[in-house]
């Protein structure tokens, strides 16, 4: 079973790493990270905090953008170009195919995130003359957040066009980021039973992405309780698994 998944993942990785959008996003984010060294108008203490904040934001936005761009086109392109036919004519289930595409896309995005993290760490070393251990944890949970976005993009792409997938995944990303503050507030302010029920449904369906944001921990060097980190990691894995299972069941019935 793993052989089939890994073969599809490798092919997806080879395909995604050649896409122009991946190279452009990587270079753009690296350029912004490198450009953050021009914040010399601030005092050193403030400068390092702004640098960490800006670079972590770049890593998250860059990772999310790559996940959306690559995840939304993988499966629909294979179906449209019919490159999928020789693959699923093999003893490969639709579920293995979807899983392989997700893993391949996530690995590609991880490579981009790793490149940005290396640049970020080099900058911190340049300023602080030491590596910051909080970076590892912050980037790890950012990667988990990006994995959720990749899973959503992969799942939606099993039944929607690349354009619709891009929009829906982007809305899920934004919604998941602001849900506790904004959508939660909408539920409290709404009066009608049906409207409240609808907002509640949306609220509980959207991923809780803000939990994965450890930027303030990195910037202010505030430790995060281990129990909380464990719960967030478990939540992330469960959400990814749930979304992918939905995608696999959608794709199992799709005619190609």
């Amino acid at each position, binding site marked *: 079973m793993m052989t*089939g998944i890994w073969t599809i993942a490798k092919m997806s990785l080879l*395909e995604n790493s050649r896409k122009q959008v991946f190279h452009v996003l990587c270079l753009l984010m690296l350029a912004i990270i490198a450009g953050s060294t021009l914040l010399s108008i601030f005092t050193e203490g403030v400068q390092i905090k702004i640098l960490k904040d800006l670079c972590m934001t770049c890593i998250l936005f860059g990772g999310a953008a790559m996940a959306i761009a690559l995840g939304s086109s993988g499966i629909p392109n294979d179906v449209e170009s019919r490159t999928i*036919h*020789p693959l699923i004519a*093999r*003893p490969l289930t639709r579920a293995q195919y979807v899983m392989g595409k997700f893993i391949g896309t996530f690995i590609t995005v991880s490579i981009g995130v790793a490149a940005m993290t290396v640049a970020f760490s080099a900058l911190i070393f340049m300023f602080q003359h030491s590596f910051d251990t909080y970076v590892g944890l912050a980037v790890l949970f950012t990667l988990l957040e990006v994995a959720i976005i990749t899973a959503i993009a992969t799942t939606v792409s099993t039944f929607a066009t690349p354009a619709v997938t891009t929009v829906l995944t982007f809305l899920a990303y934004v919604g998941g980021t602001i849900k506790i503050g904004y959508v939660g507030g909408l539920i409290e302010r709404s009066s009608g039973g049906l409207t409240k029920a609808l907002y509640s449904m949306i609220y509980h369906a959207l991923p809780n992405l803000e939990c994965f944001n450890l930027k303030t921990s990195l910037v202010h060097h505030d430790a995060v309780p281990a129990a909380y980190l464990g719960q967030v990691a478990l939540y992330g894995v469960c959400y990814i698994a749930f979304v992918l299972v939905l995608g696999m069941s959608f794709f199992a019935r799709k005619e190609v």
Partner: protein
Amino acid sequence: MAHPIETENLSKVYALGRRKGTRIALDGLSIEVPEGVVFGFLGPNGAGKTTTIKMLLDFVHPTSGSATMFGKPTTEASTRRAVGYLPEQPYFHKFLKPMEVVSMHATLAGVERRMVREKALNALERTGIAEYADTPIGKLSKGLTQRVGIAQAIVGDPKLLILDEPTSGLDPIGRRHIRDLILELRKEGKTVFLSSHLLSEVESTCDTVAVLKRGTLVAYGTPDEVRGGDQRLSIQVQELDKQTRDSLRFIDVTVEERAGGVTVVASPDNIYEVMRTLEKSDARIVRVQTERESLEEAFLRLAA
């Protein structure tokens, strides 16, 4: 023993929308493909050949009926372990090389890791493209890409090969090469399910043929059985005057203008009457030979 392919009342109806109604792509197809034969699957465009293949490989789901391969339902992925498939127009990622494509398919087909490279190279050699093993597919011609498709289909040593237009895009030498390969695969005991428009090739390779027309099976059997019709005799004469042509109208014959003169085609029952008429007109007989309906003529008769 379970047949390599067995369908029972296999049907596919596509819904075209509320106003347009439905389209019957396949209507109650029931066939059994014996093991170790080359089975020709024929039909005009839109007859349902590709739809049948898609249902066998679980690309689309039947509206009703069932299909099995080696006794197992086609809906199970494990059923396809013994199957190699060549699509009508194989598409592969342009940046991949033939060696990479065929190796990947060898892995997916369950070939042991240490044997993958050897099997892939062997498949490329059998299809005559070993020298292009490391050339990106985007740089290969249509014919060479077709051969890559055949190589990935045979690499896992499958018991059943489903080939959709295997000689499409190939030059005459390439077509001959693939025809010889198909006959070789049959000698190895494999079953080849062949969908093709090149009836001359089907005639020379297939043991059994099935002809589809508008989703319905209209003929099934050996090429001889499908051709049907009795043996005919053709008499080629240099020329035929109007009076003789008029006389021949009263006999059940066909008069055709062919290269080299006029040919009178008659059944053995009325050959003597035809010969007496021709003798009276002093027509110069060039050649007399027996003829049978070709598969192409049978195809046109059944499916046009």
